[in-house]
């Protein structure tokens, strides 16, 4: 992002009475970027969206659109498109009137509105539905009308507030694809709010994880997955094995961590000093069976249970000093056709992972 950010949220704080819903929140969003704010309910992500949209005012901080301060602008002056959870289509207006609403408010000439509405409905595959009322449409169709309505007046920004949560799984995948296509085709900046980590990972250029009104970490989906900053993120995005110990030795970029009877290596440039308490996070799919083949972590334990999931198999291994360690491994070559490739419950097994696979969490 070399150019000026399309939208800058700077040190924004929002309080409701004594509750601080959003605490010193900052983010820069590039033009054409698909940014997702991900967090559990009550994390403040919807409050951030409502402040960006102009429906509520921050107690402190500012919001900039292409470098201009818009903190005190009314929602209609900001001209951001918005897609709501549950669509919020006008029930008393036809599909065409819903889609054309923003253009009518801008007093565009009638033929232009009609032309644009027709083109948009074609874009979302709803040609022929112009005169229907929203309640005569299915959920997925209503969602597409809501999308068309939000982009009809060529907004500066598209805000999406959990727009997919009301759809069933199959429709959700369909609308996700539609969203990605729209983002790419229109070059429009998207700010997307969700509590669904899969959705965030699969749709976004960048994901900001929010907890307790703060931005815990922001980065590309792979950055967040590979290098989670906190234990919460490591557990919220995918799954992790956590191992608590103390730093025993530092060797260049690597540290050796003592966890029970085990000495585990991890990459931590400029990380914690010798004697500090740390938590290591290791993804279950990074752990392999067998003796250590390079520097990293090598442990031994007893297989507890196995869960066959088709493409992969999950194995619980009980390790002294650590507790249960989850390992996922490809089911092939293994399973029925290849007995013995995946250890039986009760077996003693060796596990290892390279030093780079262990993330040192700051907590």
């Amino acid at each position, binding site marked *: 992002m070399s150019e000026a950010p399309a939208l800058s949220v700077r040190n924004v704080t929002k309080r409701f009475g004594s509750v601080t819903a959003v605490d010193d929140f900052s983010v820069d969003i590039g033009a054409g970027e698909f940014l997702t704010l991900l967090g559990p309910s009550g994390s403040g992500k919807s409050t951030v969206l409502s402040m960006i949209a*102009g*429906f509520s005012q921050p107690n402190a901080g500012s919001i900039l659109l292409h470098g201009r301060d818009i903190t005190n602008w009314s*929602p*209609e002056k900001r001209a951001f498109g918005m897609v709501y959870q549950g669509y919020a289509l*006008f*029930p*008393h207006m036809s599909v065409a009137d819903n889609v054309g609403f923003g253009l009518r*408010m801008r007093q565009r000439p009638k033929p232009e509105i009609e032309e644009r509405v027709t083109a948009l409905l074609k874009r979302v595959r709803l040609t022929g539905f112009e005169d229907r009322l929203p309640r005569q449409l299915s959920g997925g169709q209503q969602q597409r009308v809501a999308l068309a309505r939000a982009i009809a007046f060529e907004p500066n920004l598209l805000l999406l507030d959990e727009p997919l949560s009301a759809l069933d799984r199959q429709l959700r995948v369909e609308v996700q694809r539609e969203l990605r296509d729209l983002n790419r085709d229109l070059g429009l900046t998207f700010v997307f709010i969700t509590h669904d980590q899969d959705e965030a990972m699969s749709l976004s250029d960048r994901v900001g994880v929010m907890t307790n009104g703060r931005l815990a970490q922001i980065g590309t989906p792979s950055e967040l997955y590979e290098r989670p900053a906190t234990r919460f993120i490591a557990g919220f995005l995918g799954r992790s094995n956590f191992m608590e110990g103390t730093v025993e030795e530092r060797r260049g970029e690597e540290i050796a961590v003592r966890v029970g009877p085990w000495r585990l290596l991890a990459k931590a440039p400029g990380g914690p000093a010798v004697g500090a308490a740390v938590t290591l996070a290791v993804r279950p799919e990074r752990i392999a069976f067998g003796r250590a083949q390079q520097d990293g972590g090598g442990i031994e334990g007893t297989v507890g249970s196995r869960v066959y999931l088709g493409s992969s198999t999950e194995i619980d291994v009980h390790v002294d000093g650590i507790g249960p360690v989850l390992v996922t491994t490809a089911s092939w070559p293994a399973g029925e056709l290849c007995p013995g490739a995946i250890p039986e419950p009760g077996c003693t097994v060796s596990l290892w992972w390279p030093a780079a696979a262990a993330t040192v969490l700051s907590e």
Partner: protein
Amino acid sequence: MSTTGSSNVRTGLLQATPALLLLGAFYIFPVLRVLSLGFLDPTPGLGNYELLWTSSGIRTVLMATARICLITTAISVPLGYAVAYVITTGSSRMRALMLYAVLLPLWVSALVRSFVWVTLLQRRGLLNQFLQWLGVIHEPLPLIWNEFGVIVGMVHYMIPYAVLPLLATMASIDLRLVQAARGMGASKGMAFRQVFLPLSVPGIAAAAILVLILTFGFYTTPAILGGGRTTMIAQYITTQILVLPRWGVGAMLATVLVAVTIVLLAILSRFFDPSHSRTERS
């Protein structure tokens, strides 16, 4: 639907029989007896109903009643709309407070309220004295013992009845729709006119009809604040039956009152019938 529906109706009727018999014997039968007097007294026929066209006195009363009721409705409903709107869009604390303020007067009798208006509006009442003290007027204004006084008292009485159906309708409007309209470039006023107002139309209709029905039967307030000069239909009926007594004319006018009420109720039921949900009609 047809078979189960009709058998449901049958068992339902069976269970309601005792209540229906009681209602029939002590309510419906006497009412029909009285109403039938309109066709029977003093001589059988439609003579009493001819008076609707021939008697200028009755015409004046009916016209006055209709005028007062329509004006009362035209004032109460917009005022009630404003109150309901503030309650709907206000903070939860404001909402509770205002709801109490709206409901409280419902427990004060019409009699008491009318006499309060008398002390406020009479020639040497608080309002006239205040205006004279300000020097705005030199002679006391005729605020009472006329249609103006009656309408003031009736509007005051009717506002809660206008507020309640409006509140019910407004509570079911998704306020995010107004937000959405604002986000798409509508000013506050535009968002209200394009989205909130059209969605609240069923509530306006229900409030207007409810207020109309209730005002038609008003007796106490016009009797006190009208000072005997402005007579509405309910008063006129009382005079016919208790004072003169002309049972036939009274019964005929009562029939007219009942007929108008039934027609209005039929319209009202369309707005409150759960099978005609608001979103479906709008």
